[in-house]
């Protein structure tokens, strides 16, 4: 029996406000609250609430047979809590049905997996805590930012205790293999679940495309394609941005009706739904796949070129991650907050010049050109770096700083310890016989000389 594994990703970066260079050093607030609120509210109206509602209905109407997973970044959750708490509530309602799995990812939807291993671990942990706090479940399946994956990263994720990681079914990694199998990591216990990007993009990018030869896509046709897959392929993994339901494809285009019709047609064809963790339990790995270089789900290339493909992006990323260790050492709340938000991969995507040949900047970019995106980000980053520098001057080496901080942080403990020692010595003094004290004084005095 085949299974469909739907997962949706939800990420919205905190958009930076127009930050001119003369504000560097004066203005430490970087975000455009109006734009961020408007964006979240808009998405709440057209996508999050109606989509959550639709999925909830589907789960209830199918007696919990419909299953779905979500990967929501910490930054997106924070914004939802602030601007649309009703969305959080409706996610909680989904979580309560038991048919929903929440996936683990980096808190800031960041590229830390490539640039800063320590940061990566911190963020994944922070995100898992947030998910557990909100939805009561500790995530067990890992999905990295933009489905970025490499063998090295896989090993790291495995060591962090995850059994399964989602990644892209990139052609240059799979070759002739099908994405509809579970694969093994070459040298750790991690299992890999590859996204079927054809079937995913059919829904997210082609559903409303009138010039597509398969338009209109109906639930019947879609399930038929899945049912026709070879018998041994036990599942398909379909992942997309949550905005595919309601924003990329609008309600008027019928995306919600399409979704609602899926469970019926699937069950008719004896196709079930499952979450990634269930599939990994059930399906045996078919083979090993190996990706020595990082892959992602971005564009045709399915590599990192949309995020680290040009000099602008590289400079920004290098400058940012240079101070990672320092920021983690400090405990200034606002600095930590900005550090998270500046790491969102979206900021670097806006600087991508790959799509820029025909005069249009990267998709979804709020900037007119990658150069503008870079200018604004670098001005903000310059201010941020100055603040880090004010915390800890760069003349002190990291190790030295570390030991100094240790001394400072431990001083109270040490004082208490010494005080206790003193006390006990004093009380000892009282009970010790005078003769013995004399002895000890005698003993000490030669050393002094």
């Amino acid at each position, binding site marked *: 029996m085949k299974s469909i594994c739907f997962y949706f990703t939800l990420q919205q970066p905190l958009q930076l406000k127009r930050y001119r260079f003369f504000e*560097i050093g004066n203005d430490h607030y970087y975000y455009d609250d109006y734009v961020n609120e408007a964006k979240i509210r808009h998405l709440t109206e057209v996508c999050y609430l109606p989509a959550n509602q639709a999925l909830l209905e589907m789960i209830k109407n199918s007696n919990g047979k419909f299953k779905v997973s979500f990967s929501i970044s910490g930054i997106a959750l924070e914004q939802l809590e602030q601007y649309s708490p009703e969305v959080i509530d409706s996610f909680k309602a989904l979580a309560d049905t038991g048919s929903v799995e929440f996936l683990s990812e980096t808190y800031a939807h960041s590229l830390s997996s490539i640039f800063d291993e320590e940061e990566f671990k911190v963020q994944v942990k922070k995100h898992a805590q947030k998910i557990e706090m909100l939805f009561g479940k500790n995530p067990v399946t890992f999905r990295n930012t933009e489905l970025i994956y490499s063998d090295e990263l896989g090993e790291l994720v495995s060591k962090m205790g995850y059994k399964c990681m989602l990644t892209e079914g990139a052609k240059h990694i799979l070759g002739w293999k099908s994405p509809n199998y579970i694969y093994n990591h070459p040298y750790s216990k991690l299992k890999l679940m590859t996204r079927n990007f054809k079937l995913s993009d059919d829904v997210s990018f082609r559903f409303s495309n009138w010039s597509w030869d398969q338009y209109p896509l109906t639930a019947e046709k879609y399930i038929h394609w899945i049912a026709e897959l070879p018998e041994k392929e036990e599942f398909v993994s379909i992942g997309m941005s949550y905005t595919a339901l309601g924003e990329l494809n609008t309600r008027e285009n019928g995306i919600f009706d399409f979704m609602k019709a899926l469970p019926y047609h699937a069950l008719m064809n004896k196709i079930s739904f499952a979450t990634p963790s269930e599939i990994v339990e059930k399906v045996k790995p078919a083979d090993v796949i190996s990706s020595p270089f990082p892959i992602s789900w971005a564009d045709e290339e399915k590599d990192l070129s949309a995020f680290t493909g*040009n*000099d602008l992006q590289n*400079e920004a990323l290098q400058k940012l991650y240079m101070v990672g260790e320092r920021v983690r050492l400090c405990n200034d709340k606002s600095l930590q907050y900005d550090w998270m938000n500046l790491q969102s991969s979206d900021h670097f995507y806006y600087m991508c010049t790959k799509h820029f040949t025909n005069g249009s900047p990267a998709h979804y970019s709020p900037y*007119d*050109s990658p150069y503008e995106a870079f200018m604004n980000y670098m001005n903000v980053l310059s201010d941020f770096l100055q603040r880090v520098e004010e915390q800890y001057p760069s003349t002190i080496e990291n190790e030295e700083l570390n030991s100094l901080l240790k001394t400072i942080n431990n001083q109270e403990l040490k004082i208490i310890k010494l005080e206790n020692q003193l006390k006990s010595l004093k009380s000892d003094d009282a009970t010790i016989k005078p003769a013995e004290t004399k002895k000890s004084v005698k003993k000490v005095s030669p050393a002094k000389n």
Partner: protein
Amino acid sequence: MFGWEFPPHILGGLGTASYGLTKGMSLQPDLEIKFVIPKPHGDEDRSFLKIIGANCLPVVWKDNNWDHVNYRIGNLMHPDEYFYYRNYIRYDFRRIATNDLGCINFSGVYPSNLMEEISNYEAATSVIAHAGDFDIIHSHDWLTYPAGIFAKQISGKPLVIHVHATDFDRSRGNVNPQVYDIEKRGMDEANHIITVSNLTRQTVIEKYHQHPSKVTTVHNAVSPLENPERFKKTLRKDKVVTFLGRITMQKGPEYFVEAAAKVLEKTDGVRFVMAGSGDMMNQMIHLAAQRNIADKFHFTGFLRGNQVHEMLAESDVYIMPSVSEPFGISPLEAMQVGTPSIVSVQSGCAEILNNAIKIDYWDIDAMADAIYSIVKYPAMYKTLHEKGKYEVDHITWEIAGQKVRDVYNKVLGWY
């Protein structure tokens, strides 16, 4: 083709554009160009087109022998041609002052009696029109529209006019009614109008009331630089930000000074250069002094020939904050030597450039920000330097020439 300037003796962008366009068009094997200018100097590049001086065209019959003609204008035109055109004098132009050859003397610049020179040019070109050995008439800029119209009336051949600028660009809206009249008449009479940018096209449609179907945009290009490696950037401590062009209202020099003041308020190690001359130069010197940045703000005066490219190549940023620029070729020239450019959205070239920073001319904050980031963030400079050069090397006059040819074919009904 009727033009007013041709390199190497040029006063503005018109000459450069005329040269580039004709050179690009000369690559079409079935096309022959006769280019009429008021006063050639004899040192123009005639390898790909024929240049006719209006000052060599007889408008009044004078008896002269071959040798005398050869002695007088042999360096500009073959004497046989003089006699050929003398046969086509049809009107009595004795009211115009002529020399011993029956030709009119032209200054070839933009003199104070410009209107008179324009009508004289119209008279001189009438003999070519009567000779009638051409298929289409192409007039560059308003100075030559009357000649184009007259030639069209005489020969009955279609007229295409090329709008390199309108008076709305030159005057920030306060148009000279005489100039507007000539421009409007030219556009009304023309069979087709070519504009150098969509911005100009819009002006032509809205302010001159032309039908959109009659107006086509052909963006300018830039002639490839011969061995651009010869222009080197010398290493220096301070970064150089350059404004280059006529210092006049249209080019928005005051915004450059204000942006410079903003940048210098915050940062060090940047110098600003205002190259060129113009009616607002003294005003700008005063403004720089008022803003207290005179020690970092330099004026070079008028630059010519290679000096222009040298100045551009020595700069770290080139900036053109034009209030209204029909096209503006200088950012492309800057990018040719690898200098990142900032252009105003109100410039025609902003329509075709991707790897340049675009700002509104009045947005001093954005301008200062763009200057700052190119100067301070190496990746920004590097990317604009490389990608800009690559981009501009692929904007060629050959493509522009082909588009002009398409217009010809449409007008002539040759498909």
